[in-house]
């Protein structure tokens, strides 16, 4: 059996291991214990009938005395699941020799195991590796891989005052999103599927209840999948057949189904006239990752280029390149970058590596950059090292110029968007996400293409609506209906 990139994963905590863990954490009570036991019963899988969720993550071996009991207890669940077409991934968290646990898993009918470290070992079952973000690469990542250091998407709870979002230093509400990381992982480990592992916030907070639709949309819109994880309150409610819990579950499944119905969008490539180059590792990681995060927050559409990769084929269609790392380009990259500039491109960097005879000028007193005219293009060189990621993101947007924006949001409040295009460049997709619990109202999406209409897709409806655009030269405005969580606008044409 191989790992299947179409799996829709969900954590399924149950059995002796979970009960022991909760007991140790002193969070176990009678209701929770009852719920965890119930989730281990085959009948609990009824919940998944009619949903696209087809892969459950279960604890399999922790190196605890309860391992054996856990594996025994799960057998009926695994058997019942297989009959329903559900795959199971067993989580193995052993410091030494997971081989025996993996073999037991194979015998019990697991489809794969999830491990923190395979260390070059080969197993009888395919392994999904759980990596630290900074270790993600084409070499380290398994066909499906997972990361744990992810944020629950939404307004940053640390910057909330009651139910009001406070502006950050950039005057926009601070939101948490894994979008930038999903895009980065897609470049660092191309062709592989990222499962984002993060838990919902404490459900006891009435002001900030978990927004499951957003957790799904923030992952899928940017090309990854969230390992669906329910909070205890929701799971308990579902176990007891609570109507409100069923409503939340129904919305969650609606969102998953929506993205499964649009799996063709997974082949779309991020659009961007700006390439951001870094190795995204070590000392360079913090600045580079935050710049990606903040460019995305400012709706600057970008492409990511891992520094070691050749630029040759990648500069087509680009207007600007942001070179973030302190390290100078290699001789080959240097030549490619200067060619790009000579042909009219803009390179933004913290050091000048162009022809020494070129004398710099200043573009604008507000921008702490010196401009070097080289051929038809320019190099913009920061007067000091890149330090503040926000400043780098702001300056980059201005140096590239808003004239080159692909999309803009008006009345954006806590919304953001992501633009992508199909491999044939005949369809363009702009996905808009609302990171607030309040529906976003009167949001206008501007796209830099003169298109008369778009197909509007929403999580809540099966069919698309036709949304008429309003000419807003050099592009078009689309007034969006109230936006609870997510919508997507699909454009077709030859001028996208």
């Amino acid at each position, binding site marked *: 059996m191989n790992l299947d990139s179409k799996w829709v994963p969900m954590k399924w905590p149950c059995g002796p291991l979970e009960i022991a863990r909760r007991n140790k954490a002193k969070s176990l009570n009678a209701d929770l214990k009852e719920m965890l036991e119930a989730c281990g019963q085959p009948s609990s899988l009824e919940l998944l009938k009619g949903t696209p969720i087809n892969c459950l993550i279960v604890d399999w071996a922790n190196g605890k005395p309860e391992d054996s009991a856990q594996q025994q207890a799960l057998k009926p669940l695994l058997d019942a699941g297989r009959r329903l077409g559900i795959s199971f991934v067993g989580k193995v968290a052993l410091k030494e020799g997971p081989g025996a646990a993996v073999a037991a898993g194979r015998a019990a009918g697991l489809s794969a195991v999830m491990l923190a470290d395979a260390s070059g070992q080969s197993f009888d079952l395919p392994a999904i590796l759980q990596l630290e973000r900074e270790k993600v690469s084409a070499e380290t990542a398994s066909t499906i891989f997972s990361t744990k250091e992810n944020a629950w998407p939404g307004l940053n709870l640390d910057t909330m005052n009651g139910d009001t979002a406070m502006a950050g230093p950039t005057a926009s509400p601070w939101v948490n999103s894994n979008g930038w990381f999903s895009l980065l992982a897609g470049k660092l480990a191309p062709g592989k599927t990222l499962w984002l592992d993060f838990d919902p916030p404490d459900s006891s907070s009435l002001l900030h209840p978990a927004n499951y639709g957003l957790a799904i949309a923030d992952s899928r819109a940017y090309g990854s999948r969230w390992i669906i994880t329910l909070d205890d309150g929701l799971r308990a409610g579902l176990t007891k057949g609570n109507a409100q819990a069923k409503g939340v579950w129904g919305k969650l499944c609606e969102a998953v189904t929506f993205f499964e119905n649009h799996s063709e969008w997974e082949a779309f490539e991020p659009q961007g006239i700006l390439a951001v180059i870094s190795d995204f590792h070590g000392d360079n990681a913090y600045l580079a990752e935050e710049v990606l995060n903040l460019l995305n927050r400012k709706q600057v559409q970008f492409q990511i280029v891992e520094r070691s990769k050749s630029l040759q084929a990648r500069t087509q269609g680009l207007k600007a390149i942001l070179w973030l790392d302190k390290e100078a380009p290699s001789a080959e990259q240097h030549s490619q970058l200067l060619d790009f500039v000579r042909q009219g491109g803009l390179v933004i960097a913290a050091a000048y590596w162009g022809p020494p005879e070129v004398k710099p000028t200043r573009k604008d*007193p*507000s921008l702490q950059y010196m401009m070097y005219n080289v051929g038809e293009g320019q190099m913009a060189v920061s007067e000091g090292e890149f330090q503040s990621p926000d400043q780098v993101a*702001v300056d980059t947007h201005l140096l590239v*110029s808003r004239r080159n924006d692909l999309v803009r949001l*008006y009345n954006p409040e806590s919304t953001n968007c992501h633009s992508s295009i199909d491999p044939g460049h005949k369809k363009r997709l702009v996905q808009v996400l609302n990171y607030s619990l309040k529906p976003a109202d009167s949001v*206008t999406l501007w796209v830099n293409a003169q298109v008369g209409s778009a197909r509007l897709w929403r999580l809540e409806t099966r069919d698309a609506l036709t949304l008429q655009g309003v000419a807003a030269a050099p592009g078009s405005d689309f007034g969006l209906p109230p936006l609870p969580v997510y919508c997507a606008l699909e454009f077709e044409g030859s001028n996208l």
Partner: protein
Amino acid sequence: MMTTACSRRKFIAAMGATAGAWLARPAMPLARTVPASRVAVGTCHEYGPEVVGVLGNMFDQLGGLEELVRGKTVAIKLNMTGLANTRLGYLPPGITYWVHPQVVGATVHLLAKAGARRIRLLESPWVTAEPLEEFMLHANWEPRDFLGAAARVEFENTNYLGNGKKYSRFLVPGGGLMFKGYDLNHSYEDCDVFVSLAKLKEHKTAGVTLSMKNCFGITPCTIYGDGAPEDEPGLVPLGGRGPFHAMNRLPPKSAPPAVNANVFLSNAPKDPGGYCVPRVVADLVAARPVHLAIIDGIHTMTGGEGPWTGSRYVQPGLLVAGTNCVATDAVGMALMGFDPMADRGTPPFETCDSTLRLAEQLGVGTRDLNQIEVAGTPIAKARFNFRSV
């Protein structure tokens, strides 16, 4: 009230009176006799090419712009308040709470046609030192349209030091109402003619916006903003002009002092914004006189100065222009259905002092319609009652 088509001679005379007031500002007493003025009202229902024709006729009714601008550097303060991505519903800011780019382009074109040598577009965009062209692009304006409307057009963000080496100091004739003077971006000094290009709209704090309140935005937030340092101007604007609204702090020590520092901080009035903002505006138009006031009321909004005040889109179909900002605003108020002689407690000044009265007190101009000649469409025919729509 007189409704006449005025002569160029009268227009120039009025201009001379205004300019003379500026030159004589250190000795100007309060409540002096103010010059009679004239204001043109034009009807124009859409932001199409017709704007050029209507504005051109209005300038002719004022006596023409040639004598004022020929061979001169003209600075135009645009009204682009708030963030560039904020809209009233789905409507772009130009048709609701900003001056419309078509009116800006038409003005630039007509100024160039009248012989202006250099035209500078100015604004102090909200909490940013970014180039003004980028701020415009954010709102989906095309700065190249303005560059194409005249031979030499420049842009400057005046919310900070900008292209200048130092701030220009403008003292208020007679000593000022709130501050003895104001330190502004060099652009407000490095010009021969100053134009206020405003929107016909109300204002939550100051009652009305119009051509005088538009000048509130000439103050750089590096000095007058929430985040300005205590001693010297900041390098970039941090925050808005909260101190003028809350009277909770004074500008840096390097700026001209307050007339009465005791009314700030703990001694501030109960409605500090309604007290301070109109006075600052009156000070500013006395210290930095407006030579030409233009108000865009073709499409606009009611209820306040921007979408954040909860407002409604309306189409009065009006343009207003005059050589005196107090008189022009008085006609603007009358066109909005307000009495320009109104003061605190009376619409639209329910919770604030009248900027018009304060500016009149400083000798900037008259708000008395009986002393204002109205050319073009009579007020009675053009009135669009902002509180009855």
